[in-house]
């Protein structure tokens, strides 16, 4: 069975159908791309998947159960995590605390444990700390662990956001335009990095991206949205040659 199965998903804002009849299937350890021009509804799809917006139609099955109607944090508890198009870190918290907050989704203790510093408190804090150190090392942030998140350079902020999402131990990671604001060299590095994450953590990744080269280079399957509707889906090769996609991106040939 697929990890994520989306059927006939739609949402309406006032009179506007922002997304209509969206469907998608993601298997284990797959890297899928979701592309489309500005305002096509890509981020809206993310927001529906993660419970930020409640869809008006359709069904979302994740890891064997329906997640329609769940709140954002409930979705995350079911092992789906995301990043944001406009980076949303906890700016005034240290890099390591940014990640550590996510760890508590999986390992927690009661308030009583916290107040009386019981054995469980020390044990969980220790485990979380180890997890944080591991992620910091993997993401090359270990010597910036005590910096405030807002003081990190842009590229590091992007990476920290991914590390923070991974600390929630997702099976599916949603990346919302991770290459935004990066130069071609950085984008290329990012492509390698995303692939590496997929293999290292053995997770599936759904990637929204503007940068065609990035998506075409690493995604196994691609879905193209325009005006809230799917206009094409398939392998990168199929997408590249699809006349409708070319039209949506470049415009109709005279």
């Amino acid at each position: 069975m697929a990890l994520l199965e989306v059927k006939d998903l739609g949402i309406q804002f006032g009179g506007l159908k922002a997304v209509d009849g969206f469907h998608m299937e993601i298997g284990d350890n797959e890297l899928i791309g979701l592309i489309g021009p500005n305002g096509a509804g890509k981020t809206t799809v993310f927001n529906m998947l993660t419970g930020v917006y409640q869809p008006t139609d359709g069904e979302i099955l994740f890891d064997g159960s329906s997640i329609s109607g769940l709140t954002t944090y409930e979705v995350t508890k079911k092992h789906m995590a995301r990043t944001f198009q406009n980076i949303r870190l906890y700016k005034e918290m240290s890099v390591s605390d940014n990640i550590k907050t996510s760890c508590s989704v999986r390992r927690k203790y009661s308030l009583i444990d916290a107040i009386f510093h019981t054995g469980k408190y020390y044990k969980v804090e220790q485990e979380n700390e180890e997890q944080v150190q591991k992620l910091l090392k993997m993401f090359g942030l270990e010597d910036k662990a005590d910096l405030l998140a807002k003081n990190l350079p842009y590229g590091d902020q992007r990476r920290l956001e991914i590390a923070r999402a991974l600390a929630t131990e997702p099976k599916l990671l949603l990346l919302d335009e991770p290459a935004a604001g990066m130069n071609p060299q950085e984008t290329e590095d990012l492509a390698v990095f995303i692939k590496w994450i997929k293999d290292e953590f053995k997770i599936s990744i759904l990637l929204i991206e503007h940068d065609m080269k990035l998506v075409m280079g690493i995604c196994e399957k691609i879905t193209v949205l325009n005006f809230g509707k799917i206009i094409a889906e398939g392998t990168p090769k199929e997408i590249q040659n699809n006349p409708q996609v070319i039209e949506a991106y470049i415009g109709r040939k005279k």
Partner: protein
Amino acid sequence: MQKNMKKGIIKIVIVVLVFILAKFLIREGIIGAYTERIIITVGINIILALSLNLIIGYTGQLALGHAAFMAVGAYVSAIFTTKLNLPFVPAIILGAVAGGAAGFLIGWPILRLKGDYLAICTLGFGEIVKVLIQNIEYVGAARGFSGIKLFTTFGWIFLFTVLAYILIKRVVNSVYGRDMRAVSQDEIAAEAMGVNAFRAKLLGFIIGCAMAAFAGGLYAHYLMFIDPVSFDFNKSTEILTFVVLGGIGSTSGSVAGAVILTVLPEALRGFGDFIKTYRMLIYSIMIVILMIFRPQGIMGNRELSLQNLMKKGNTFNIKGGEKDGIA
């Protein structure tokens, strides 16, 4: 574990030594009744500042009716000791429970909303509590509640202030405290990372309200008389100023803010008639100047910690990599 244990023992020893010293000074009359009174007020104010800082500094919610929760604790505990003859400690604990329950009743509907609604509603709640008490004959209505026994001594204040500090420290340094800070900085991101923002905010708010109510209980059994007007908007403002002066989000800052703003007006009192007359005027001008030139308060959001004092001599633990010293 071993290291934590050792640090803990050192802290306990220091606290006990300070207590014995203070006790000795009081008995020898070196600390007079006037100074002792100021110390007790300082203790109560520290607990109030710590409790409000948890709400404002950690959950990021602005609460403007803190004195009302203090009133709940003061009145409830006073009813238990005076009318129902319960011992002091259970009575103030029940007062704190009542304060926490009141916090739940306000917070449960309001904290679901995004935005500054808590500020407005706690403000309204503060006025409602005041007016309601003014209309309850059982507790003396507007005339006030008198005949409360004196229980709050230096010893109790010392103990409870230390405990309150430890409690807050442990809450904020736990997963719960981190959740609160995450929510205060970016609620949407925190929710996406699996934090139940509503629950984090509600927890911080209830703990803060319960602690304020606890401080109210101490206050009632120290002054032996309480009336609704002592818990009005001005009192809430006073507590807020402790937190802001100390630095929003800094636990040690809250302590510093409470100490300075309790002692300062008393100190100004000593400067003769001019100061005495214009005390409040000077006080308000000082706050304006402080806000313009050092709005982050004395401590910013940094912490003063024993560990760093021992390790580096007299330097401060600079949390989060900010490099400037303490002004």
